[in-house]
């Protein structure tokens, strides 16, 4: 085994021991408990994230009436679902869904990461806040989408939505063909954050 790999293994073991020591001391002093890390990270791992958006989109795919309500009044429709508190209020109160359809592709961009529809989409990828991405996506969305591996034909209209403190957009992608037999839960697994941003489409597994 080369030295290159040895360094990596050492670092893993070394840092694992460092953080175990810190955690043990902080617990011993009563500053944190053995549940603290899980509790604080629960917010990202189970409460606010793209799994919520996936549930919303999957429901829209199986229930056309829900989809209609979702587009008409997004927070109200989201509130129908059994999602964590705060999804349709506080952080997400100005949420607006736009639906892709034959002939329409939607793309969302935003200037400030605080305006990203985080409760539904989770954390934005690193390129999302890049000023180049934002300005180019607004100016030449087709070229940017093509670079993402998503060429959009000329017959399809591309709509770009700029999120702000007032409105946070997310995309309801089209249900992929060949998924008629899938359950709502199986459909959730096909909904990616990228598809809900409009830089990708949902695909059958």
């Amino acid at each position: 085994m080369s030295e290159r790999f040895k360094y990596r293994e050492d670092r893993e073991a070394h840092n694992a021991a460092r953080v175990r020591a810190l955690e043990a001391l902080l617990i011993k002093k009563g500053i944190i408990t053995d549940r603290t890390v899980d509790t604080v990270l629960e917010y990202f791992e189970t409460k606010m994230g793209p799994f919520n958006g996936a549930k919303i989109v999957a429901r829209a795919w199986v229930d056309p009436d829900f989809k209609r309500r979702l587009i008409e009044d997004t927070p109200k429709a989201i509130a129908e679902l059994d999602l964590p508190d705060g999804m349709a209020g506080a952080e997400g109160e100005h949420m607006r869904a736009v639906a892709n359809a034959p002939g329409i592709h939607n793309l969302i961009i935003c200037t400030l990461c605080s305006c990203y529809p985080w409760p539904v989409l989770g954390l934005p990828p690193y390129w999302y806040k890049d000023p180049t991405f934002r300005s180019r996506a607004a100016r030449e969305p087709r070229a940017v989408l093509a670079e993402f591996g998503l060429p959009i034909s000329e017959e399809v209209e591309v709509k770009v939505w700029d999120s702000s403190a007032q409105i946070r957009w997310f995309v309801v992608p089209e249900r992929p063909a060949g998924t008629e037999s899938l359950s709502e839960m199986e459909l959730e697994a096909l909904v990616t954050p990228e598809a809900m941003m409009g830089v990708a489409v949902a695909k059958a597994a």
Partner: protein
Amino acid sequence: MLTQFEHFAVAEMLGKPDSPPRANGTLCFGSEWERTSFGIALALAKEGYFEWDDFRDELIASIGKWEGDHPSDHSSWNYYDQFLTALESAVVKTNLLAISEIRELFGVSGQANPQ
């Protein structure tokens, strides 16, 4: 607008030098120690043991120092290496733990080395 501390804390970092790795809409941890480091720092700041901004100053300084020490070869870069170093430094500076306590528990095999 940002009513949740967790949300605020991470949103502040995005697009900055200390922006944490993420994938598919969530924080991206390569191993358990990375996750634990992040969770401890966030929890301590949430409980008010130190200011998140002060912790971030430590982290950004730690990242800057690493970059200065590795001007061309970034192959050994690990974000959470720097994060853990900043966390050790923060708990010592705020007197939550003493350097001697960390070293004692850490034993002779390695050395915690808060600046």
